[in-house]
Each structure stands twice: as structure tokens, then as C-alpha cells.
């Protein structure tokens, strides 16, 4: 073969080889990448749907066992029972969203009457928008959204015949009545309520109904709760650990991030000039903030999706997240939403000592403007279970009554009456009564005024967020009177802290 022919043959082989190899590199890989990206997106979509399903649900559920105005008792469901009840309640709600029930308003008194019969009552987080349920049931146009933007609670009577009751905007109460043909799902609410074994639950009563207050309190709390050693998920003592956490927010830009170590122990990671920032303090509180420019949110449901996806992508999934607050943020022309999430420990909600929720996300448009998280988990240390058990909250209120009354009166700018002190001599009381100035009309606050001002009483684990990664969480009775939350150690009855709630914090 001549040299020229050989050269031509080699050239042809080289060209063919390079074409084949180029095809392999450029045409097959992108296809694989696209398909993997597509499946990645499907996974994300599935994950988002699952998280949305988990998050869009009542914060609390109360079951009323009936008994009339004088003898009715109630219980708050544990998270595991709440899940079971919610699956059934969703079927009833779905019918109401899909069909067009007849709506009428009823009075608060009629609603309170309904609560004295057997029922299931769902309490949603503060500011919970009706739009969330519309999205959950995929019904943008529905009777509920047409009358109320927010849902506080929904009551389903045990004798459910297509009728449910909703407390919405401005405490207005509505009755929704479905026609029999529109009740597609048959739910036996009586059977659901009867499924709770007798004496397996803590009984709550409206103990202060004589002061015009229907707030529920337990007479005794038989289920003891332990004092638990917990630690925050983020270990702020290790720089490597913090870098890994921070890295999840900056991804490939992490190499260009400036790190500042404050003397107080907080580590700050900054990208650009305030474009993105992550702060981790020595307690393990992580705060992310980013500039969102002129972005504005048009839909609260989309904002929730953005928030949930951000958390899943950058922090990781959390089972058992509970939606506690939804707040509309308006800054000039821009609209955004703040979502507050909480979690449970031993079936009790964990409440931070500061006013914020354990997880808070602010969304403007398609971006997250701020994200803060401090989640604790139990350590592998023994729990402490005091033998005396959980004190009754009405006893705690009684022990501290004089002090509470004085503080309540101070806030009202009025005088507290001289309440009889335990064990004081009769003669002393008489003398004091003589020396007291004659109060003017309406300037005295009575004990019943104080009892009437109790908003709610709840057993929680208080996260004191002290300057440690590790903390002993204790069960606490949070008693909210008017605008103030009083936290009492549930085992010892001592007052741990007093917090003035802003309007947003009060239910």
C-alpha cells in the first residue's frame, strides 16, 4: 500500500474515533444529567408535597366528651392521636371544600353551647390562612375561602350531619351545612371519639367558668413528664462542624465567603456585601439572611412552598414540624410572609424563652430573606422524673394569686384589693381594712377580673436558650394572663420567667 493511502486510512480512523468519542462525551452525558435532574426534581416535588401535607394541619386538637354546661370535660390530643384524627377530619373538610355548603353566621354563645356536647375541635396556628386548605384540597374557589381569610378553629360535632363550625376572621363564627348528597365521605365521628380509651387521657375542665372564662385547665395531670438533657443540633464548639453547616447555604460560593469570629462566640459567614450572611452563635442558633431586592409575594401558598423547600435543601428535613404562626409582612409596596414552626418533645410543644419560634422563615417573592433555627434533641443521658409529678396549674395560680393580682392591677393602672393571705391573723386583717383608703368606683381590680383575663394554660417544654449548647429542658406551665406569659416550673411551682407578649404572640 502506498504511503498516501496509509495516511488517508489513519486520518479516517482518527476522525471516526474522535467523532465517536465526542458523541459519547457530549451527547450521552447531558441526557443522563437531564434525566437525573428530572428525577431529582420529581423527588423534590414529592418531598415538597409530603412536607406540605405534614405541615398544613391543625396545631392542636381538642376532643370534647360532653356532659352539658356543668359537667363537660375535654382533652388535648397527643401528636400521634392528632395525626389519626386529622386523616379523618380531612375527609370531612374535603367535602366542604369541594361542594358548596350553605353558610350562616352564629353567635359565640351558640358556639360555646356546641362545645358542651361531644365534638372534635381543631385549633390552627396563629394567622393560618384558609388558602392553605384550599391548596391542600386543590379547590381555589370554595365557600370557606369566600367568607374568611384565616381559620382559628373548626368544630365537628359527634352528631355530624354535614354541619361544621368555623371561627375565622375577627372571631366571627360560621356554620357550614352540606346537603346529604354532597357528603361523599362517611366519617363516624362518634367512633373516633370513642376510640380514645377511658382514663388514658388528661381531663381538662373550664374551672374558671364562674368568672366567665372558658379556658381549659386540668384538675390533675396524671402523666408525669421528665426533665430532659438536650443539646442543639448545631455544635458551635467545632469550627469544622460550623463550616459544614454554613457551607450548605453558600454551596460553590463558600470559597469566597469571609468568616468573622466575634468575641461573644458568634461566628459570622458573609458573602458579598451583605448579599448573604450566616450567623451561628454559641448556643447553636443559626441565622441566615439574604437580600431579596424588590421581590414581593403574591401567594401565601407559594411562599410556604418556597420556605419548605429552602429548609429541606439547606438545613435538612425535619419530621414533626408544626406550623404555629403565619404573618403577613408589608414593607412599603413589598409583601412577604413569616412562617413560624415548632416541634414536640415527649408530646409537649417546645417553646423558646424568647418570643420567636424554633424555626422562623421570612419569604419575599421566590426567595428567603431570613431563616433562623434552633432545634434541640435529647442527649443520651438519663432523664430526671421527680416523684411528686406535675402540679395542677390552678394550685400554682392560687399560690401566686396575690402577686399575680398586683401585677395585673399595675398593668391596668388600678389598685389590687387586699386579698386574704393564707394563715394571717384575723385582727391584722381588720386593722388593715380600717386603714385602707376608700377606693373610688371602678378603680379596684378583683380576683375574678384576673381569672377572667386568663387566655390559655398550656404544659410545654421551655427552651431557655441560655448561653450553652446543652440545656436541661423542664416541663413548664405557661399561663397567659392578658398580655403576659407566666412560666412556672411544673414540678416545683416556682416562677421561672415572665414575658410580655406582643399582640402577635397572644391567641
Amino acid at each position, binding site marked *: 500500500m502506498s504511503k498516501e493511502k496509509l495516511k488517508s486510512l489513519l486520518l479516517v480512523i482518527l476522525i471516526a474515533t474522535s467523532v465517536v468519542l465526542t458523541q459519547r462525551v457530549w451527547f450521552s452525558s447531558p441526557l443522563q444529567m437531564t434525566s437525573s435532574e428530572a428525577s431529582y426534581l420529581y423527588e423534590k416535588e414529592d418531598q415538597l408535597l409530603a412536607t406540605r401535607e405534614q405541615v398544613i394541619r391543625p396545631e392542636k386538637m381538642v376532643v370534647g366528651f360532653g*356532659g352539658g354546661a356543668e359537667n363537660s370535660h375535654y382533652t388535648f390530643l397527643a401528636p400521634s392521636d392528632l395525626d389519626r384524627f386529622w386523616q379523618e377530619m380531612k375527609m370531612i373538610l374535603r367535602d366542604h371544600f369541594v361542594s358548596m355548603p350553605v353558610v350562616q353566621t352564629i353567635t359565640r354563645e351558640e358556639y360555646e353551647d356546641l362545645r358542651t356536647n361531644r365534638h372534635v375541635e381543631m385549633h390552627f396556628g396563629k394567622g393560618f390562612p384558609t388558602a392553605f386548605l384550599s391548596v391542600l384540597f386543590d379547590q381555589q374557589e370554595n365557600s370557606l375561602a369566600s367568607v374568611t381569610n384565616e381559620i382559628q378553629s373548626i368544630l365537628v360535632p359527634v352528631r355530624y350531619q354535614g354541619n361544621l363550625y368555623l371561627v375565622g376572621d375577627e372571631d366571627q363564627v360560621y356554620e357550614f351545612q352540606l346537603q346529604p348528597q354532597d357528603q361523599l365521605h362517611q366519617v363516624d365521628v362518634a367512633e373516633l371519639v370513642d376510640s380514645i380509651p377511658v382514663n388514658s387521657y388528661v381531663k381538662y*375542665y373550664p374551672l374558671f367558668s*364562674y368568672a366567665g372564662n372558658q379556658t381549659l385547665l386540668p384538675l390533675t395531670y396524671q402523666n408525669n413528664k421528665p426533665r430532659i438533657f438536650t443539646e442543639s443540633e448545631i455544635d458551635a464548639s467545632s469550627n469544622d462542624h460550623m463550616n459544614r453547616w454554613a457551607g450548605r447555604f453558600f454551596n460553590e460560593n463558600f470559597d469566597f465567603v469571609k468568616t468573622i469570629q466575634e468575641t461573644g462566640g458568634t461566628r459570622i459567614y458573609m458573602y458579598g456585601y451583605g448579599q448573604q450572611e450566616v450567623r451561628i452563635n454559641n448556643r447553636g442558633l443559626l441565622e441566615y439572611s439574604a437580600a431579596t431586592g424588590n421581590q414581593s409575594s403574591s401567594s401565601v401558598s407559594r411562599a410556604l412552598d418556597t420556605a419548605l423547600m429552602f429548609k429541606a435543601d439547606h438545613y435538612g428535613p425535619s419530621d414533626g414540624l408544626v406550623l404555629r404562626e403565619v404573618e403577613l409582612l408589608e414593607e412599603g409596596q413589598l409583601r412577604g410572609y413569616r412562617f413560624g414552626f415548632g416541634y414536640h418533645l415527649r408530646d409537649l410543644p417546645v417553646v423558646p424563652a424568647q418570643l420567636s419560634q424554633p424555626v422562623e422563615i421570612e419569604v419575599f417573592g421566590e426567595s428567603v430573606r431570613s431563616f433562623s433555627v434552633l432545634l434541640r434533641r435529647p442527649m443520651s443521658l438519663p432523664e430526671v422524673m421527680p416523684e411528686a409529678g406535675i402540679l395542677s396549674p390552678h394550685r400554682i395560680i392560687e399560690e401566686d394569686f396575690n402577686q399575680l393580682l398586683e401585677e395585673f392591677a399595675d398593668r391596668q393602672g388600678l389598685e389590687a384589693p387586699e386579698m386574704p393571705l393564707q394563715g394571717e391573723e384575723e385582727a391584722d386583717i381588720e386593722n388593715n381594712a380600717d386603714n385602707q383608703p376608700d377606693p373610688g368606683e371602678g378603680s379596684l381590680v378583683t*380576683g375574678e377580673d384576673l381569672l377572667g383575663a386568663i387566655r390559655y394554660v398550656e404544659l410545654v417544654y421551655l427552651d431557655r436558650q441560655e448561653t450553652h449548647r446543652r440545656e436541661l429542658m423542664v416541663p413548664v406551665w405557661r399561663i397567659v394572663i392578658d398580655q403576659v406569659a407566666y412560666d412556672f416550673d411544673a414540678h416545683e411551682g416556682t416562677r421561672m420567667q415572665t414575658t410580655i407578649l406582643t399582640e402577635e404572640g397572644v391567641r
Partner: protein
Amino acid sequence: MKKWIIAGALILLMTSGQTATAEATNTNVDDNTISEAIAEEPMLEVLVPQKDRVTSRETMMVSFRAPTDSLVVVEVFHTMGMADNETPVALYEPMAFEIGVLERGWVELTLQKGINRIVLTTTLAQKNVEPKVEVTERIITVKDLEEVREELSRNVMQTTATDLIRRLTNME
């Protein structure tokens, strides 16, 4: 002139007679009367149940009001109500409640079918005198739901209209 004198005298007589009548009625209540009236008021007020009751429910929340620093002991005795010489059975160990500044006490009781006698004994220590003791009772009869319904309808049929109105307007 005479007429004027007689008329004047009559008017004076009438006026003085009324004054005498007014004076005769002693509207001043002295302290002794007040304290006696107070002493007659019971120490303990059972808020729920306000009176004896027939019910189908076995659990009952009893609430009461008593003075601060008093001690209220609650006992429950049960009989089936069949025989007259039946010995009452105590359903609980005596439960003691120290009453605080709220002046309230609450107890949840699980009763049994038949006659349940709830006895509340209130003791208030007093300076330099014997403690004041008071006993209050409530009889709660627990029956099956059907029996309760029958009894109610029987009561309604046996009651005359006048009695019904009287019972309703008495507001006991």
C-alpha cells in the same frame, strides 16, 4: 275661728300620730342582728351539683365554694337503694381540700349505679373559739339512661300545669 282651731288640732294630732308610728318602727339594725344574720349563712356552697340529682352519668365534677383557710373533706357513700338496712359503702378514702384564696375546690368523682351520698364536711379554725364545722350533703342517683328518661316523662305527666309553672318560676 273655732273651726280653724279644731282643724289645726286635728292636723297636729294626725301628724304626731304618724310620727309616733314612724318612731315605733325601729329601722336601726344593730350589730348583733347583723352578725346573727351572717352566722346563719352556710360556710360551704356547693356550686355543682346545686341540688340532689338523678343522672345517667357515672362521672361527676363537684365544685364548691368555701372560706379561705377552711378544710373541706369529701366522702362518698354508696347504696343500691334496694333494702332499707343496706350498709353504705365508702367509694373513696376521705379526700381533704385546703381552700386557698380562690375560695374554690373541685373534685372529680366516679360514682356507681344506685344512690351516692356525697358528704362535704367543712371545718374553719377560729381564733379563741372552737372550730366551726358544717356538713353538707348531695344525693346523686345514677340510673340507666332509659330509666332516667322514663322517670322524667313520668314526672312531667304527673305534674299539674300549675305545679310546673310554680316549679319553673321558683328557679331553684
